Structure formats: C-alpha cells, structure tokens
C-alpha cells in the first residue's frame, strides 16, 4: 500500500511539473506539444550530470547540480520551439512534433556515441546512475521519500503565485487570451511568449529527470519518455489550465500509472489475472474518457496556437 502511495506521488510529481510547464507555455499563447522532447533532453542532462560528477559529493550538491543540468538542457531545447513559434510564426503543432522526434533521436545518437567511445562493444543507449540516485531518496519507515516530490510541491506553489498574483503572470495570461489587446497597453508579446516557452523548458526538463529516476536506476534513451509528455498535456487539459486543478489531475493520473508498477502486490488485482498491458493502457484510456467528458466546456487560452502578428487586427 505504501509502495502504491510512493509511486503515485512520484509519478504525480512528474506529471505536475510537466503539466505546469505546458500551462505556462499555453497561457502565453504557444501550444507546447514538444514537452515530450523537452523531457527527454532534461532527462539526458540530469543523467549525464549524475554519470560524470565526481564521486563523494554531498547529497545536497548532487541534487542541486542534477536539477541545474536538467533545467539547463530543457531550457536550451525549448528555445527551438520559442524561436520557431515566436519569431518565425511556424505551425506550433508541427514544430512540437518535430521536437519530440528530434529529442529522442538526438539523445539516442548522443548516448550511443558516448557509450561506443567508452568501449567499442557497447552500442546500447543506456545510462546507469545507481549510486548518485541514492542522494534523492530518504527512507521514512518503509516509505521512500524522494526530494523531487518536494520540488514538485514547491513548483506548484510558485506557479500558482506567479500566475495569479504577480504582474508578470497576469501579463503572460493576457498574451494568451488577446495578444493584440496586450500589445496595445505596452506589453511586449514576443518577450512574454519567449518567457512562457522557456519556463515550460525549465519545468519540462525537471519533469524529465524526475521521471527517469522514478523507480529505475538506468535509462534506455531509445525509448524516449514513453508518452509521458503527452500524458502531462492531458493532465493540463483535464486541469483546465489551472495550477490547483492540475495538481489534482496529476494525482489521479499518477495513481493509475503507479497501479501498473505495483499491481502485483495486491491480491485482488492479481486474482483478476489481467495481462500487464491492460495496466499499461490504463492511464491513456482513463485520460481519453476523462477528456471526452471535460473538454466540452474547455477554458483554453483563446489565442493559443495562433502566431502573433503585430499588423493583424
């Protein structure tokens, strides 16, 4: 039971972080389908940092460095979307899709090249991080507390305050609702959209590293992040683009995802003898059903996905 709670919380943290990232980007008016690719890049940054950092660092140092590396790569990668969507008025869905493919492909090429350079026989795309990963975990009884859970909770609080209580957040939202109106009162729409996308890079990259350290100690980059970025988008939509509701949605989705990992521990679920594929499918099915019922009265930012053109009325 505790295991289920632990996995629910960690997967919910991932979903929450990434969905909040998507929330910032979409409130600024840019659809970010590329979150999946950003997650892969963040994961790569964090994993590389864990692989190459000197042994014997204090736990706090490890955590900080890994987080910084993940964020740095996430932000850098999200620039690809920002440049294309803001400066070049590209089709955001297309660019996002390309970023997802590019993220996985680039990470695979890179990790394979690195592994092959170390030893010629190693053509896998796997990075191991058994030792440094322990820095993130604190055992409280049989519950394994992960510092990333705290990071996610902080991110939630900060996002809420920034989005609703600061000048910056309100301006950001204005750019996603009616950029022409925002521009007319002197807000720089391009800058705001850049900010939105880059924040989604921060949170997406962070989500990536949390995801690959949740439960496993090595990651095969050929698999990307297995659709988690998209699941986070569903969480965001189900959460109606509002931080608090996103948190609740993330918990719900995290629960179903966790079930897939730990269902063998429950006798009544084991007795059902469902193939494991059913549990793998569950989060996606649930999200589809949930979306079908909640999308009718969607309150998506009105101008999302539309490139801002200063000359347009």
């Amino acid at each position, binding site marked *: 039971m505790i295991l289920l709670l632990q996995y629910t919380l960690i997967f919910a943290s991932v979903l929450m972080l990434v969905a909040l990232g998507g929330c910032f980007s979409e409130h600024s008016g840019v659809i970010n*389908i590329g979150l999946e690719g950003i997650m892969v890049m963040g994961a790569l940054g964090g994993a590389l940092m864990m692989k190459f950092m000197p042994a014997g660092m204090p736990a706090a140092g490890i955590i900080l460095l890994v987080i910084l590396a993940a964020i740095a790569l996430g932000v850098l990668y999200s620039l*690809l979307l920002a440049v*294309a969507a803001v400066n*070049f*008025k*590209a*089709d955001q*869905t*297309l*660019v996002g*899709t*390309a*970023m997802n*493919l*590019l993220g*996985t*492909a*680039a990470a*695979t*090429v890179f990790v*394979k*090249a690195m592994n*092959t*350079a170390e030893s*010629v026989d190693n*053509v896998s*795309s796997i990075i191991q991080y058994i030792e440094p990963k322990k820095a993130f975990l604190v055992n409280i009884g049989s519950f394994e507390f992960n510092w990333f859970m705290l990071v996610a909770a902080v991110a939630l609080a900060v996002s809420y305050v920034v989005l609703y209580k600061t000048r910056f957040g309100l301006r950001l939202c204005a750019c996603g609702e009616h950029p022409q109106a925002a521009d007319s009162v002197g807000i720089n729409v391009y800058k705001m959209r850049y900010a939105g996308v880059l924040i989604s890079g921060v949170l997406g990259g962070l989500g990536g590293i949390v995801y690959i350290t949740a439960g496993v100690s090595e990651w095969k980059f*050929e*698999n*990307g992040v*297995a*659709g988690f970025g*998209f699941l986070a*988008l*569903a969480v965001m*939509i189900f959460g109606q683009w509002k931080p608090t509701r996103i948190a609740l949605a993330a918990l719900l989705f995290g629960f179903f995802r966790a079930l897939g990992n730990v269902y063998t521990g429950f006798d009544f679920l084991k007795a059902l003898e469902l*193939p494991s*594929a*059913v549990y*793998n*499918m569950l989060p*996606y*099915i649930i*999200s*589809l059903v949930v*979306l*079908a*019922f909640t*999308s*009718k009265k*969607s309150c998506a930012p009105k101008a999302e996905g539309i490139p801002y053109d200063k000359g347009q009325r």
Partner: protein
Amino acid sequence: MKKEKTSLLRNGAVQSLLASLLCILIGLVVGYVALLVINPAGAGEAILTIIKNFMTYSKSTAQLKYLGSTLVKTAPLLMCSLSVLFAYKAGLFNIGAAGQYVAGVGASLYCALAWGMPWYVCLLAAIVAGALLGAVSGLLKAYCNVNEVISCIMLNWISLYLVNMLLSTVKEEASPYTLTLSSTNPGAIMPSLGLGALFSKNQYVTVAIPLAILVAVVVWVILEKTKLGYELRATGCNKFAAKYCGMKEKENLILTMAISGALASMGAALLYLTGFEQWQCTQSAVPAMGFNGIAAAFLGGLNPLGSILSSYFIQHITNGGAYVDKTMYSAQISDFISALIIYLCGFVLFFKVTLNGYLDRRDEKRKRAEQTAQEGGDAE
C-alpha cells in the same frame, strides 16, 4: 490588359520545391556536423553512405535488390504521409497515423495468421480497423471537443498495447515475433505479378508498391477534383465559413479522420502482407513510420504527388542509416536527420512569405525604374 510576365519563383509549386530542397540541404548539413562532432574521422564517409543507401553495393544486381527493399518500405511511408496530408487539408493534425498504422498491423496479421484469410481480406480488415480508430478521434473532436492531437496520441499507445496483446496469440513459441506468413499462410502474401523479378528476384517487391502510388493519385483526385475534397478543404480553411455555407462540418470531420486512418492502416497492411517484417509483440514504442509520415507529408509540400517523392527520400536516408559504420555511429542518425527536416518544414511558410516579399520589392523597384525612365522620355 496584357498579362504581366510573372517570375518563375512566384509559382507555388516551384516555391514548395525550393523550400523542400532547402530543408533537405540544411538537414543533411546539420546531420553532417553532428557526425563530425561524434567522430570527425568517418563523418564524410558516413553521410555519403546515408545518401547513397543501396548504391553502396558495387554489383548492379545487389543495387537493384536493395532498391527494391527501400521501395517495399516506401509504400507504407507514402500511405502514412497521405494520411497525415489528407487530414491536414481539412485542418486536422493526424498525429495518430502511427496508432492507426499499428491497428492495421494487428488487423491484417491476425486475419492472416489466426484465421488464414487471403491477402485481400486482410488488407480490407486493416483498412476497416484504421478507419474505425480514426473515426473515434473524429467523433471525440466533433461531439466532445477533444483536441484530435491529444486523443490521437492516447489512441496510439492504447492501440500499441492492444495489438501487442492480440498478436501475442499468434507469435512464435520461442521468440517475441509473430509467425511468418510464408510458413503459416502463404495465401496472405500479396501477389508479386512479376514485379519481384524486375528487382533481382526480390520476393518482397509486390503489387503493394504500385497500389500505394495509385492511392496517392486517387487522394489527389479526391482532394482537387471532387465535391467532397472541396468541402474538406473549405472546412480546413475556415470551418465557420464552411458551416455557414451549409457544409456538414461535423460529418466531414469524422469522415476525414476515418479516411485518414484507413490510409495509414492500409499502409501497414501493404508492408506486413509482403512478409518483409514480423511484428515484435514486446514492442514498447509506437513505430516511427507514422511520425515519419508527418515528415514526408510536409516535405512533399502537402501535395499527394509530392509525397511520393518525399516519402521515397525519407525512406532512402532511413535505410541508408543502416549502412553507416556501427563502430562509430548509430543508425538513429537518420532519424535525427528526418526529425530535423520536419522541424525545418515549420519554417516553410516564413520562407515563402520572405520570398514573396523580396519579389514584391524587386518588382516594385523595376516598375519605378521603368516609370522614371518613361517620364524622362516624355520630358525630352
């Protein structure tokens, strides 16, 4: 009024072609730089290997044979790109081509292996499965306002796991792969009609390839020459205007997704019913074919006939990636290049606008020069 001579660059098709070539060029250059960074020693050779693909073989019979193999995989890619393109023309982004493709694999292989159906029934089953899956996304979009991108992505994963479950019942005992068609049900292999003999007896070259090209032409005719195609394009341009004109935008939307899904899943059948590949029932990622279809569709300038060329190109470099020196590079370098090309396709609109702006300025300058020359002539 005499018709003004327009520059060749004004032509939409020429612009699309130029933009696509530019995307390919930049993609290859960046890919080359990536190779240089990984290992400068073999980068030049590797990029040439990718571009050459089957031409790395010195014998012409081997070249022909592997050209055949590239073509075998071009057929499904072309179908996927048609699927993406068809939906895009109606204003929908069918990122679910991958899932519909998987559904096609499941339906066709299950019919072939479990029920021993002939190939045309399997093909039909695949088409129906894809159409149904596409229609689900369409229905969700039309009646529940679910963004088709999200629903398609969810359906991609759902269909992957479902098909894995379904095909596990017809897999080989000792491996995760499905039974081969040739040993279980040779009647499910598509007829070659002598095409295989043309490619140095490549048995996998079948009627599938001309069939895919035929479908591309049919899609072009539907989009450009029929009422349905007109309505779909109108809905894509402005769905409110289309509704105002009395078009049934909801029905059109569902129909579009169904046709789009059918195209992608038919592509799957066109590959798997040649016996070229077996499905791996433990597959944990959605196959790249559907996503590469997006690349091919946009690279082809969103024209069905352009898709034929662009899908061949994408498949050509993907196959070429398999030949690079594995001690230095990985085959994914071609995925990297094709992903880059999709990314660059996002800039095509900007390219066209800039080009048109440049042409406008040039024409204006010329006109003004003519005018001043004329005025100068009058004054004399």
